[in-house]
């Protein structure tokens, strides 16, 4: 694992896989949208609103998996003080926040016609809203200090403490009586969903996942360049101070 943790090596590997990721993501999203909007049937109970699922469910998966990734990176950064892990955690946060927001809004747009309410304070919805606030808190905290490393450490601790929310989201539909339906894809005994709907769902999920890797690489590149800029500036200030 540590062999991949060197920023220079990371940049080299990222440069190789970046065009592949861009191609796969575009293909998956294009095919996913085609199936989601044209080539899949309406649900026998929910009618056309089932098409909201192809955004809502993959966005929810991304919200949770990005937070998990962020917590793992934060743990690695805190335990091994690894700068690349720290930077990848920070690069993950905006993507996770965007998908969590998308999940919440698409859920409201689905809730209104199906449940008759934009929002209900039930366990699944509330824990997902908390996840969104955790992302916002993480991003705010990591930029809140003059000394960036202090902010990054505080944010990493928040990410770890907040991770307790992820299993709560996952099993909230089993632990409490909620309006939200229980899992139909990731459950024991295989997915209880027709292949005609599973195909667009998985294509969109693959498109979102590869999109995350693309943004992760871009943000990591920006962070690595930013760190080098800071080092050069510090050296310049230091040299100027000695020159006087």
């Amino acid at each position, binding site marked *: 694992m540590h062999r991949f943790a060197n920023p220079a090596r990371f940049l080299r590997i990222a440069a190789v896989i970046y065009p592949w990721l861009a191609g796969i993501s575009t293909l998956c999203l294009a095919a996913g949208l085609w199936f989601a*909007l044209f080539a899949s049937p*309406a649900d026998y109970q929910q*009618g*056309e*609103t089932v*098409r*909201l699922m192809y*955004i*809502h469910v993959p*966005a929810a998966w991304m919200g949770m998996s990005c937070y998990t990734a962020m917590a793992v990176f934060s743990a690695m950064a805190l335990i091994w003080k690894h700068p690349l892990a720290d930077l990848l955690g920070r690069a993950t946060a*905006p*993507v996770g926040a*965007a*998908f969590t*927001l*998308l999940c919440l*809004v*698409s859920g409201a*747009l*689905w809730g*209104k*016609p199906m449940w008759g309410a934009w929002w209900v304070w039930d366990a699944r919805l509330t824990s997902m809203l908390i996840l969104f606030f955790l992302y916002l808190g993480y991003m705010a905290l990591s930029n809140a200090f003059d000394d960036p490393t202090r902010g990054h450490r505080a944010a990493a601790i928040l990410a770890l403490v907040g991770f307790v929310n992820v299993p709560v989201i996952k099993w909230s539909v089993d632990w409490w009586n909620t309006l939200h339906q229980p899992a139909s894809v990731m459950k024991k005994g295989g997915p209880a969903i027709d292949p005609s709907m599973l195909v667009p769902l998985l294509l969109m999920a693959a498109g979102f996942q590869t*999109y995350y890797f*693309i*943004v992760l690489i*871009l*943000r990591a*590149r*920006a962070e690595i*360049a*930013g760190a*080098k*800029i800071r080092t*050069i*500036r510090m050296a310049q200030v230091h040299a100027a101070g000695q020159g006087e």
Partner: protein
Amino acid sequence: MPESLAAFFAMGGYGGYIWPCYLLGAVLMVAVLALSLKAARDRENELEILQGNRQDRARRRAALAETASQGEVPQ
């Protein structure tokens, strides 16, 4: 076929819920991607300029040292 197109956009009467969802998804994904792309390009350009300056300065200093040492050589 304007009629079937209209039917497609109507989404069985749920178009008002479905299209905003897809639109928001597109807007969020494009915005995050564009901001990340811009940040990567800006920082990498800035770094290149800084490193270029540093190399220029090092080269100038080396050239200066060379002429200075040449100047010291007694004719």
